[in-house]
């Protein structure tokens, strides 16, 4: 395959043992692919399973059956059956995930939170910090905040720190879970720009966005998740 991501009949059901073993089907028959440089937007109402699909592609939720092919270091790895060590390796060098909320690490300065994904991949600390600073400036985080841990920031500031952390790396796949949810117009425009730049670098992206205008600006293709609805 030339695709960076290729899902084939992926399926997910939650079994709630504490509620008498109730089966909660989430999605079935999920099949789509994402080419390099392409942004695929998942659409569908709340509860249709968009976030679950994103989490399955990140290996955060397990895939019950089917296949999630990921192009990783020149080879295709099936994430649905990969060993934990492979999933970690894929997350380090292939797939980035920008969630809505920052899982704040206590006591770490904002600039270092943003620079960390580069440092983990062997970029020198000074260079990583410089790139982190550039991104934070673009996202309108004032320099006086850079040395503080982001845990005390407002929701919108935390989300921008999270976006900077997600976009700083040179990973070939990015998963975006409502990256513009609590941002003002100026910062939404910056995120749209960042996504366009990633496309020119050949990054494959899967995004969830509720804002119609943003969706229109970033989507190369829309995949309607309601067709994967598993509820009987």
């Amino acid at each position: 395959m030339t695709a960076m991501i290729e899902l084939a009949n992926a399926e997910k059901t939650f079994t709630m043992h504490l509620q008498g073993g109730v089966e909660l089907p989430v999605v079935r028959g999920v099949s789509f692919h994402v080419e390099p440089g392409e942004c695929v937007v998942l659409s569908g109402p709340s509860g249709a399973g968009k976030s679950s699909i994103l989490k399955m592609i990140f290996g955060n939720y397990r895939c019950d059956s089917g296949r999630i092919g990921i192009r990783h270091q020149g080879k295709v790895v099936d994430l649905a059956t990969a060993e934990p060590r492979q999933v970690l390796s894929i997350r380090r060098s292939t797939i980035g995930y920008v969630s809505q909320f920052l899982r704040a690490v206590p006591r770490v300065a904002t600039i270092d939170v943003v620079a960390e994904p580069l440092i983990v991949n062997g970029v020198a600390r000074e260079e990583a910090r410089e790139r982190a600073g550039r991104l934070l400036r673009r996202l309108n985080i004032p320099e006086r905040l850079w040395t503080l841990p982001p845990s005390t920031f407002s929701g919108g500031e935390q989300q921008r720190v999270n976006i900077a952390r997600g976009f700083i790396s040179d990973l070939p796949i990015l998963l975006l879970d409502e990256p513009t949810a609590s941002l003002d117009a100026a910062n939404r425009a910056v995120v749209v720009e960042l996504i366009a730049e990633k496309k020119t670098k050949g990054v494959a992206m899967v995004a969830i966005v509720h804002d119609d205008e943003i969706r229109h600006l970033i989507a190369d293709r829309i995949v309607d998740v309601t067709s994967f609805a598993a509820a009987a």
Partner: protein
Amino acid sequence: MSELANFDDDQPLLVAEGLGKNYGRLAACRDVSFALYPGEVLAIVGESGSGKSTLLQLLSAQLAPRAGRVSYRMRDGVLRDLAELGEAERRFLFRTDWGFVHQDPAQGLRMGVSAGANVGERLMAVGWNHYGRIRDTASTWLDRVEIDIGRIDDAPKTYSGGMRQRLQIARNLVTEPRLVFMDEPTGGLDVSVQARLLDLMRNLVGELGLAAIVVTHDLAVARLLSHRVMVMKGGRVIETGLTDQVLDDPREPYTQLLVSSILPP
């Protein structure tokens, strides 16, 4: 956790195969098998009595298994059965290549001698004999675990609980071990002290590329420190996988119960 170790190394550091241990008729640990790789942090979670502390003692050669075996890759690259090691090799593991962080710092420290001596002792055990160098290295380590150098000559019995635990970590890491065992390392500490200790451990493990096996009943500790988790119940491993996968998408009834019992912050 966000800090990822290097997983390109394909040779496991420690291998457990079919481990079992009984106390009388009680099976404390049954048929446990797994491989731990360099730089990987594994959390063993479960309630009191689930067998996790027994397993830690089996893995660290403090208890002999009734069934199965534990193998460890020595620094020469050869994987060796722990039960067949000679006394010198065992001593090398305990004094140099392994660390063991106890829940109660009094078990891992000498409470009556100075902090500097507590750290320096591990170096002297591996042949260091230059007082100035030992003291310098001990000072560096106290600084890394955020203990004021001005307290280097005080005994840990004068330290707070959090400081004792940080001193125990310095004592263990000074010989640059490749594997550290931790038994409820944050148990018995105040929440704010726990957060500081966890952050410190997370950074040290990442910087030093240590492999670690952490026994904890606290899922927040597992989430922050570990790459992979094993859930134990009744002496068996009932679920295992990536830490965020097991905690966000738990499959077994018991794991779902553990995860759902956490109070939201």
